[in-house]
Structures are given as C-alpha cells and as structure tokens.
C-alpha cells in the first residue's frame, strides 16, 4: 500500500516542501469542481495519497503544482464526476475581496454563477490560468492536452463568461451589496 512506501528522509522533506504547500490551492479548486465541501476534501486527500504513492515518479524541476492538479482532476473525474451544484455563498470570504467588476457592476455572485454554468473543461482551464495563474504549458500538463487546446478552451470560456454576464442587467451597487448580507 502506498502509505507504507519506504521513503527516505530527503524524499519526505521534499514532499513536504514541494507538495504539501499546495493544499489550499487544490482545495479552492476542488470546492469549485466538486460542489460540496465533503467531496472536495475527499478529492484533495485522495490526490495527496496518490501523489505520495507516486512521488518517486515526480520529475524534479517540473511544476509540482501542475502535477498535483493533474492528479486532482483525474480523481474528481474518476470518483466524483462533474458537479454543477451552486457554490455555497457562505463559503466565500466576501469581506476580503472587491465585490464588483467596476466596468459593469457585476458582483461576485453573478461572476461565480456564470462560472458554474461553464462546462467542466472550461472551468478547469479557467481555474488553472485565471485563478492559479499557471502558464499555458503548465495548464496543458495538468489537463493532459496540448497548449493549443488550452488556448482555445480558455478563449471560448472567456467568451462564454462575457456573453452570460453581458445579458445580466447591471445591478446597482446597493442591490449587489445587499445580496452579500
């Protein structure tokens, strides 16, 4: 079993410093993809168990974060399936962020609602590039697709997002703020 792999002290330290630092990033993405906190926790835990099992196959010098996201997406596809459940509003730390798009006055909930309506592959690519700020190459590795596919998916995802947000009527600042209360 993976847990009983004999790892050297150096390998354990490497895993700790390179892989375990991405728990929060993986959890944030898992919450957007799995639809529930429990499923997201399961997916992230399973991701790390897999990563630990195959840590010897990880190539030093490559992006550990991209590698972990690749495992995470596989775990979610395999065990949890694509979820389109609405993001629980209470899970967002609304006080810590700017709530509106200044140009359109769309609020954070409208943006997230539009995000949830995207297909799984569009959400994945946005999570990697827009949220995690990965390069296209890293995102391509995580998704297991060519860089060109990342570019085209990203382009379509943004067009879709803008289209949906464009149809939404602009809210007043007061209305949008009231939604968060």
């Amino acid at each position, binding site marked *: 079993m993976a847990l009983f792999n004999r790892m050297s002290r150096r390998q354990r330290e490497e895993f700790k410093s390179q892989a375990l630092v991405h728990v929060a990033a993986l*959890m944030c993405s898992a919450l957007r993809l799995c639809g529930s906190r429990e499923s997201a926790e399961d997916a*992230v835990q399973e991701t790390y168990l897999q990563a630990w099992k195959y840590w010897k196959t990880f190539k030093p010098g490559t992006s550990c974060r991209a590698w972990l996201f690749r495992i995470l997406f596989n775990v979610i596809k395999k065990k949890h399936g694509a979820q389109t459940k609405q993001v629980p509003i209470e899970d*967002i730390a609304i006080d*810590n*962020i700017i709530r509106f798009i200044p140009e359109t006055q769309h609020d954070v909930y409208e943006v997230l609602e539009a995000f949830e309506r995207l297909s799984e592959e569009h959400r994945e690519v946005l999570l990697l590039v827009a949220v995690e700020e990965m390069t296209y190459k890293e995102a391509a590795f995580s998704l297991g697709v060519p860089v060109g596919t990342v*570019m085209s998916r*990203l382009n379509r995802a943004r067009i879709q997002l803008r289209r949906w947000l464009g149809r939404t009527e602009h809210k007043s600042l007061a209305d949008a703020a009231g939604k968060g209360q």
Partner: protein
Amino acid sequence: MFDCRRTREFIDLYLDNELESVPTKHVAEHLEQCAECRREFELMRSQNQLLADSIKNQKYDIRKLAADIEAATVGKAAIRLPELSRPRIPMWVLALGCILIVAVSALFYLPGKMSLAKAHPLYQAVAADDRACFADYAASDWIRSQPAINELATLFLNRKQSIPSSFDGEYKLVRARICSFDGVKFLHIIYETAGGRHASLFIGHSGASLPRGERSKSANGRSLQLAHVSGLAVFCAEDDIRLLFAAAPDDDAAQAALLAALNS
C-alpha cells in the same frame, strides 16, 4: 502597431502574459490609443481578478485538512523509534562486562579445541603414556604375542572377558604391557592400522569414580567421559570395578574407533 481586430486576437495571451515581447509591445501601444479595446481589456482583467479572488478567498480552515494529509503521508511513513533513555551504567563498565563474558565463555568453550584448561591428571597421564609407549615400541617389556597378552589380561579381566584382537575392521592388536598411573596399575594395549594410525586401550582396577572429563557422552547405554589432551582424544568408561581408557588422535574416525573398542 496592431489594429483592433489583431489586438482582440492576442488580448487573451496579453492578459495571461503569454505573448512574446514584440507582440506585447504592439498590443500595449494599441491599448494606449484605442479606448474601446482598452475598455474590453480592463473588463476582462476585472472579471479575471474577481473570479480569482472569489475562488481563492474561501471561509475554509485549511489547517485541519493539511494536518490530516501530512499525517497520512509523510507522517505515517516516518517510523519514529521510541527514544531510549540514556543508560545509567557507564559505557566503559558495559564494555568491560562484555569482555569478561567473552573471556569466561572462551574458558569453557575453547579447552576442547585448544587444551587451555588442564584435564584431570588421569587423562593427562593416559595421554602422556600413550605417546611415550608408542614411541618406545622397541622396548623389551612389550608383550607381542596374542596368547601371552591374553594371559596377562587375565589379571585385569574376569573369565568371561577377553582382549579383542582387532576392532573397527582395521585396528589390529600389536603389543601390550603394564604401566602405572598414580600408583594404579593398568594394562596398556596398543592397536595399529596398516596405514600407521594407532589407538590405545588402558584397563585398570580403580576404586576411584569415573574422572570428570570435558563433556559426557553416552554410547550403548554406557556413560563415557571425553577429554582432549595434547591433540589426543581420551575416553574413559567404567566397567564393574574396572576403569577403561581409550586414547587416539583427535579426529572423528579415531574417536569412532575408540568408542567401538570400548564397547566391544
């Protein structure tokens, strides 16, 4: 400088910092001059920022999950041995104890192989006499004829017993004479093989109990004592009031022959 259409083609790449330096320069120049494209770019950037912020800022305490994961991976693999308390006995005392144990063990184990400890005087006397008599084969007091040896043996054996003329197939009786150990007389009989090997049998009356050898051995229900003296294996057995010794070079074949002789 790019026009609007060309700029919109590259605007995603520009936003994600994936453009090469030259196209980046062209897009940047166009955005500076074109308000419509600049507005589109700012909208994309705000939307991106809001999406990233809302996803990254979760009211979720990651610490427990991170701790669980660490415990299930690196924590579980690291086998922590219980810390041993510092021994209260100084190391030099422990070392000295070990040396003493080895030395005492050697005293008990090695004698059989290296004859470090002295065997019982009777075993030493038997071994010494065996060597002396074998070397002194030309002495005049040796009795070499079988009938004469049998007659001499009557002094040491009862009527029903006799001296074996051979044992183990190849050891033949060659000569005998009387010798004395510590005031006790023994009949010393020498057997030889065609190959030059020899073995001795000593038969004597003794009131003393079986002298203790290095170890006990049992053969045909008879209790034997074995001692190693100067490269010789010396067996000792009791038969009624007689004490029997057998000596031969310290090797397995000779020892087996001696045991056969004692039991014959």
